[in-house]
């Protein structure tokens, strides 16, 4: 069955993409994902801040005890190394080897903080063999002084700078927490985004009530997490030039199908692969094919079948969805007060 898909101009053998996550931290991991049949692999994120902190830390450590004791004016030989510390070099090497090791596109993911860092590293990633760059614009939550328009402006600025510095496609993985998500997507589309990945998951900390501790909130996504991105993909389908990538809440083949029906060009998953191992990708694809066969649909026909029609009133559509949700709930749980 023909599952080939166009994602930002890249030709993928199918619409299932392994998103940034722990499985893509080694060449073997990336190879396993490709072997499992995915259409493309997004590498885990290179964090620019982390890398700058590391370089700073290394320099600080090197000079921490210098010039304090007459017999030892220093403790390390003068070794010329990159000011990025070890993180960037390791990442670039991984991109290079992983891109070589697989025959599907490898997308590098960049999580940056400064404009200069974004631009420099994006072009280095492209040079190292990444087929595309995914910008993970993840502003640290909790800062109450930054205005919404500042955040939006920052996204556009970063995207434009990177877009100008590389020739490979550039996707933006965005957060759902804009006051007008759709408008932001359109703005990014206008600013040159080749793809929009919906959504980044905001890692919220948890509280351990026994130990009275705040614990870091890294959790795998669950199926319900797919509803929000699916809604927005359905809305955006046909309204932006950029490819649409769905991310979050993919566990079974039916989740893949739902996203495609809503209008996603590709469907990304990490959590299910972490839970069940890379070969699970094969099962998702088999399920997709089985569904298409059962419904006697091609992928092209199925994609966007249940998207919001281009001429529909988006508010009305959303309202309709809300009303039907209430109706459904009523029939399931009894009358609501």
């Amino acid at each position, binding site marked *: 069955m023909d599952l080939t898909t166009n994602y930002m101009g890249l030709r993928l053998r199918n619409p299932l993409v392994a998103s940034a996550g722990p499985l893509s931290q080694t060449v073997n991991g990336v190879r396993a994902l490709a072997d499992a049949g995915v259409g493309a692999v997004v590498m885990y994120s290179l964090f620019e801040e982390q890398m*700058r*902190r590391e*370089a*700073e830390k*290394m*320099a*600080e*450590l*090197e*000079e*921490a*005890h*210098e*010039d*304090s*004791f*007459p*017999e*030892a*004016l*220093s*403790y*390390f*030989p*003068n*070794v*010329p*190394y*990159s*000011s*990025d*510390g*070890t993180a960037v*070099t*390791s990442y670039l*090497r991984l991109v290079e080897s992983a891109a070589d090791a697989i025959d599907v596109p490898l997308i590098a993911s960049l999580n940056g903080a400064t404009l200069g860092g974004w631009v420099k590293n994006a072009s280095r990633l492209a040079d190292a063999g990444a087929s595309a760059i995914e910008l993970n614009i993840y502003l640290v939550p909790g800062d109450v002084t930054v205005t919404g328009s500042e955040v939006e402006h920052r996204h556009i600025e970063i995207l434009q700078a990177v877009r100008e510095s590389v020739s490979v496609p550039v996707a933006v993985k965005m957060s759902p927490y804009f006051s007008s998500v759709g408008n932001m997507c359109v703005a990014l589309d206008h600013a040159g985004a080749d793809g929009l990945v919906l959504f980044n998951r905001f890692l919220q900390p948890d509280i351990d009530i026994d*130990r*009275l*501790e705040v614990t870091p909130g890294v959790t795998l996504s669950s199926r319900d997490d797919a509803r929000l991105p699916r809604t927005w993909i359905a809305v955006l389908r046909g309204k932006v030039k950029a490819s649409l990538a769905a991310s979050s809440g993919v566990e079974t083949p039916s989740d893949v199908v739902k996203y495609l029906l809503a209008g996603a060009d590709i469907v990304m998953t990490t959590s299910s692969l972490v839970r069940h191992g890379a070969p699970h990708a094969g099962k998702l694809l088999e399920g997709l094919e089985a569904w298409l066969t059962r419904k006697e649909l091609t992928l092209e026909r199925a994609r966007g079948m249940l998207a919001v029609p281009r001429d529909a009133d988006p508010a009305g559509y959303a309202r309709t969805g809300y009303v039907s949700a209430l109706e459904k709930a009523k029939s399931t749980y009894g009358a609501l007060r």
Partner: protein
Amino acid sequence: MSERLIIDGNEAAADVAFRLSELCSIYPITPSSTMAELADEWSAHGRPNVWGQVPTVIQLQSEGGAAGTMHGALQGGALSTTFTASQGLLLMIPNMYKIAGELTSTVFHVAARSLATQGLSIFGDHQDVMAVRQTGFCLLNSASVQEAHDMAAVAHLATLRTRLPFVHFFDGFRTSHELNTMHRLSDDQLRELVPRELVLEHRARALSPANPFIRGTAQNPDTYFQSRETVNSFYDRVPALLQDVFDEFAAISGRTYSAVEYHGDPLAERVLVVMGSGIETIVPVVEHLNATADARTGVLFIRLYRPFPVESLLAALPASANRIAVLDRTKEPGSGGEPLFLDVTSALGEAYASGRRATMPHVSGGRYGLSSKEFTPAMVKAIVDELARPVPKPRFTVGINDDVTHLSLDVDASFDLNDPETLRAVFYGLGSDGTVGANKNTIKILGSGEDMFAQGYFVYDSKKSGSRTVSHLRFGPNPIRAPYLVNKANFIGCHHWSILEQVDILELAQPGTTLLLNSPHAPEELWGQLPRPVQDRIIELGIDLYCIDASAVARAAGLGSRTNTILQTCFFAISGVLPRDVAIEKVKTSITKTYARKSMEIVRKNHEAVDASLSHLHRVEVPATATSSKLLANPVPASAPEFVRTVTATMMSGHGDDLPVSALPVDGTYPSGTTQYEKRNVSEIVAVWDPEACIQCGNCSFVCPHSVLRAKHYPTARLEDAPEGFLSAPLNSAGLPDSRYTLQVYVEDCTGCGLCVEACPVKPIGQPSRRAINLEPVVEREKEKAAVTYFEELPQNNRARLDFGTVRGTQYLQPLFEFSGACAGCGETPYLKLLSQLFGDRTTVANATGCSSIYGGNLPTTPWAKNAAGRGPAWSNSLFEDNAEFGLGLRLAADLHEDLARARLQELRTEIGDDELVDALLAAPQRHESDLLLQSERVKLLLEKLEGVPGHRATDLRSVADHLLRRSVWIVGGDGWAYDIGSSGVDHVLASGRNVNILVLDTEVYSNTGGQSSKSTPLGAVAKFATAGKQTNKKDMAMQAMAYGSVYVARVAMGADPQQTLKAFREAEAFDGPSLIIAYSHCIAHGYDIRKGLEQQYKAVHSGHWPLMRYNPVIREAGGNPFLLDSPRPRLTLREYQDRELRYKVLRAANPEEADRLVGLAQAAVNRRWGEYEELAMRGAEHFAADTRSQ
């Protein structure tokens, strides 16, 4: 135009030596290490010599090894050089005879340093080079940074011309570490200087099978003597050939030199003779005295010392000279005079006797400048004045007060020769604040202009934590020839308020000096906070006072404690040496240059700090009257012993130079336990105990590197008179009802390292980031001090009733190693503290030179202490290389005296009249602490009974009776000693079967000299001399030692398993034979915040890098498997262990492929070794070597 640079003497010499060599065979030793390190770096970075080849740099296991390698390389025809000093040069002596005897061309570059005699000194004098004057090497010396560069070139050419080897030396520290403006010889100049033919001739003399001959025969009475005389003509030719070299050098560089150089009045009557940097001090004084007082003086500089240039000396010395003072920077006790004096005297005597000189001048021999003692213009004047006296002292010293043999000259300290155009600045800083680094930058900034000359010299104290630095800087339009400290400063910067309260920072101030204080106090409150003496001096001298809260600016900029660029900016802004804008731009450029390669983040933060500096800088209006009642802090409490109050305290306050000869011990013997009187208060944050949360496990005090956490338990009733704020908790162990427990923090000694916090297993409920011990700012220092005093009065818990077998039990044992100056969080000292707690009152310690001998034995105060009964570890340091043998000697002496004691005891049975006592003394088991306590009571009783017993046998017995108490001999040192320089000694002592305990504090590098690679350095770790990552495996000393069968062996890591460490120490000590404990010691040279040191130890063990094991021959003899594998199968990868440490990360950042390759190999080695260990742990006893001593 040659390149103008500001570098130190070491770099100046090494820069030439490297470019004119094919091989550098080296070994680190202060103060020459920098030369070797630079050569290694250059080689690693592919820098070629002037003939286009990258020289090989190879580190050996000792200087003896370096010299041997060099001898071989020279016989192989390679141009070879080395860099060394002090004992290192002494270790080369045997080879030096060989090299000279075979007329071999080579140059040894020596940063001349004191020798270890009554004490070790790392500082400069000529004792080492004078000890090789008889080897047949030519000795050539330099007096300045420029000369260190130039004479290096001259020596490399001269050795090829003359076929004689050269030692090129310059004053350790004074020249080797002084930054000064100099002109660098280009590759072209050096190539032009050293003709290729000479290199080819040297090569042609090499051993070659193509043209075989033998060299190094054994000779007999018939020809050895004559053969020895064959070389005379080579030495005779040296002065002439060397002059040719000087002429050629002058033609190339424009700088002229001679074997002997005279400065001063051509008709001088009084002449000084000197070598080394002293000439730079003397010349301006001579010129000044001739010009102002018609003094008719001069000075001879002996540049070539061997072969002694008699003819040049006679030619250069004015015929009018009738009073001569020869200055030796060395000491030869018992000699008729120091060597240069004897050489000059014999030259003059012979000349006079033969009629070549009409008169025989009076010649005085003077010693000066030992161990970098200051040599100032005032001292020169004192010597010149002495020569004018009717009968000058024939022998004298200058620079000290000899009130015993009265050899010293009186010096009028007010005599001064400061160039008014030179700006002199002094900065007081702490090691951790970057003051020295910033000053080095300042010198480079100022000295980089063609119209400015600059000099920098830095004084450090001998502590490794909270160390104080004093930077002495000079700048001006004239070349700076002043190899002595600034004595009058135009600018004084005090970069820490605490320094101001402890030392007289205005000692060097003069009228109108500018003073910049880094002050936590607001400008309007500052005056009231100053100590009275400081206020008085400020008013008296009309000092221009500025302040800035640089620490706050640094914190705001995210720079932590690095206040350096902020204070540097203020210096430029106030001193006016450059226009403000220009200066600031230059500071920023220099920051960018320093850090851009490493971290733009640091560049950004520092630039921000520079910009923020000026708005926080304030000029302080000085009131007309002093208001303060505060005095400078007393260095030691009034309760300290007299020696400490007088001698030690003087050293501590920085006035040790003023101590007279009579104040000091004649044989290097000092009282134990003096660190307790030096309350350094080095940390603003200290450990604070939480009695409620504490479970009294003892983990914190076990790991505390500074012995500042002490535990006692006592009856509750004792608390009645406790001072307010004295903390305690109910004792939580069974069997002692109604008892309280106190964990006392010695706040004034705490370094805030945080190891205790990391070791604490308790998290108080609801406070997950806290422990039962936490780091907090010191709030009420006086209250804390009162608590410590009270705690000290509580009785020490009875050793015989404590459980030595548990970490919990050991916390009640008094540490007899305390408050050392080791780095905050040191990984070595907790092991020494444990040793002192367990066996301290019957231990002698032989300590190899290195970190542990420096924090263990560097004056003014030392940490090995004694208990209330006056007993404690007796400690000594012999050398670096001989420590195992030295310790064995202590053991043999103890054994002899024990045997003697036992024999005399039997013989005196009747006189003692207590058979039960005698039998018990002879048969006591002495295994447990209770046995030992009983035995020591018996010894006491014996001595009582011996009172009044006449005869030599009784006298004998009294003198050795203490040996009836089992003596514990510990041989302690680092991996540089145990794995490298002392390796053969360690091996031999282990093979001796004697009862010694060897403790290797393994930091996997030479820590004390700055992180050079040893054979313990792990595969893939970057260290000096392993710039590209160590390429070979770490030596497995444990397996080597096990092979003997008669050695107890343990590998321990306190941070991974304190209980196993404790067990190993006790078993090793109890084992009647040689024991070896290899102790993982985290170190600042590993490159991470060593607060995480214990965690790294844990990872080292659990990655299999450092498998814990014990090998106990006793178990084998009992039929069991003596090999005990104490750590579980590795569950971390080697990378998980290594990733935190800079020594591995640097390679990963520089060359990730190589890092991967090496970590792969290292992981494979770990896996293989673990397999072997597991297999060993499962073998039967018969598969291990027998302890043949018991068969």
